[in-house]
């Protein structure tokens, strides 16, 4: 039973924070604190006031693989994008494997989510066009993973400006959005270029793209409206394709 007298509640909260309660009573205190704001406040008092006791604890060297484990667990907790994607035709599956390899995703999550949230769209006024360095014609994929033909065009100008141009009409469901990704470094994994605005046509500033090379993979996935919560693609691939340089000689 949770006591009613202030002193007894302080003692109980203190014993809870010190870890001195048996498992049953500790669980009861945790449950009670969810509805009992006074008890929660008394617990928070001890948590806050005792925390400086850790001043004597010297930090240890970090565990190199630990963040990867945490990020991996967060990703699996988010539903497992790869498990949710139906089997793809053989040729496509190789691409999927490259995207899906856990090793690819190291250190990406942070950057990608930040990019998704901070999508910088240049003003609509058309500046002088920089010559196109690469096109990527993205092929559509239906829910079964079957190819549905050219669906999206990505144009990368010499100055690094990226233009995204839908060739088909795509209406993400309510609470969903399209997110554009690119992969240039297997070790780094896919990097978000941002959540696409409704309609999907957008021009991205050159800083968005660190590196651009022939063969670079572009992909558009279906994600929550705010972008992938994990920093890597979590929804199914809607469009995928590689960058190609236009022919060097004009026709």
């Amino acid at each position, binding site marked *: 039973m949770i006591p009613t007298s202030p*002193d007894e509640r*302080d*003692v109980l909260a*203190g*014993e809870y*924070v*010190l*870890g*001195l309660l048996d*498992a049953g009573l500790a669980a009861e205190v945790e449950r009670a604190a969810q509805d009992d704001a006074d008890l929660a*406040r008394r617990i*928070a*008092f001890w*948590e*806050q*006031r*005792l*925390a*400086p*006791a*850790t*001043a*004597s*604890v*010297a*930090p*240890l*060297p*970090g*565990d190199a693989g*630990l*963040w990867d*484990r*945490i*990020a991996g*667990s*967060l990703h699996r*907790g988010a539903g497992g994008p790869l498990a949710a994607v139906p089997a793809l035709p053989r040729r496509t599956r190789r691409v999927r494997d490259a995207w899906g390899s856990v090793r690819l995703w190291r250190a990406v*999550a*942070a*950057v990608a*989510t*930040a990019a998704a*949230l901070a999508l910088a769209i240049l003003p609509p006024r058309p500046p002088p066009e920089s010559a196109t360095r690469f096109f990527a014609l993205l092929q559509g994929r239906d829910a079964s993973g079957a190819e549905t033909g050219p669906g999206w065009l990505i144009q990368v100008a010499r100055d690094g400006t990226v233009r995204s141009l839908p060739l088909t009409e795509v209406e993400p469901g309510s609470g969903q959005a399209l997110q554009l990704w690119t992969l240039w470094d297997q070790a780094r994994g896919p990097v978000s270029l941002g959540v696409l605005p409704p309609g999907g046509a957008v021009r991205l500033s050159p800083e968005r793209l660190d590196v651009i090379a022939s063969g670079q993979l572009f992909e558009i996935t279906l994600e929550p409206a*705010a972008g992938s*919560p*994990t*920093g890597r693609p979590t929804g199914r691939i809607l469009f995928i394709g590689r960058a190609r340089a236009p022919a060097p000689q004009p026709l």
Partner: protein
Amino acid sequence: MIMDRFDHAAELEACARRDIAALRRLYDREAGFLLAVALRIVRRADVAADVIHDAFLDIWERAGTYDRARGEGRAWIISVVRYRALKHVRRASREAAYDPALHEALRDDGPDPLAALAASQEARALHDCLAALPAERRRVILLAYLDGLSQTEIAARLGTPLGTIKAWVRRSLLALKGCLS
């Protein structure tokens, strides 16, 4: 203490908005320290790593319940780690596995907690209030808080009856509450 502007509360609020970069910044900033906090309780490096893993998932899940009006973000994070570590040791029924020799060997490792508190300005209030307790009662509080020992373990460690330890804990908490408020 080195002055710095790392804002734990703001990073937790960003975690609540599902910004995984904020969780990564907290990890980069505190993982080594939190690993040491956990290791002090669980006494095994592999288990301490598991604790930090679970604690960061907790932080991610529960960041929305953090309220900066209730206190500092760093203390909140330390609490999450301690509860995880305590769950591990209690689940492993350390009462049965209690090894007096191991605890004796570990008893003097690290700097004196009270001295470390004195050196830290932010910990001044806790230092002064702990210093006002009789030495053995102060030790009980720190063995529980820092080492995660149960009252039975503390009784065995200090060679003091369990009933006495329980009475000390109770009186120490009431004294600390008055002193720290």
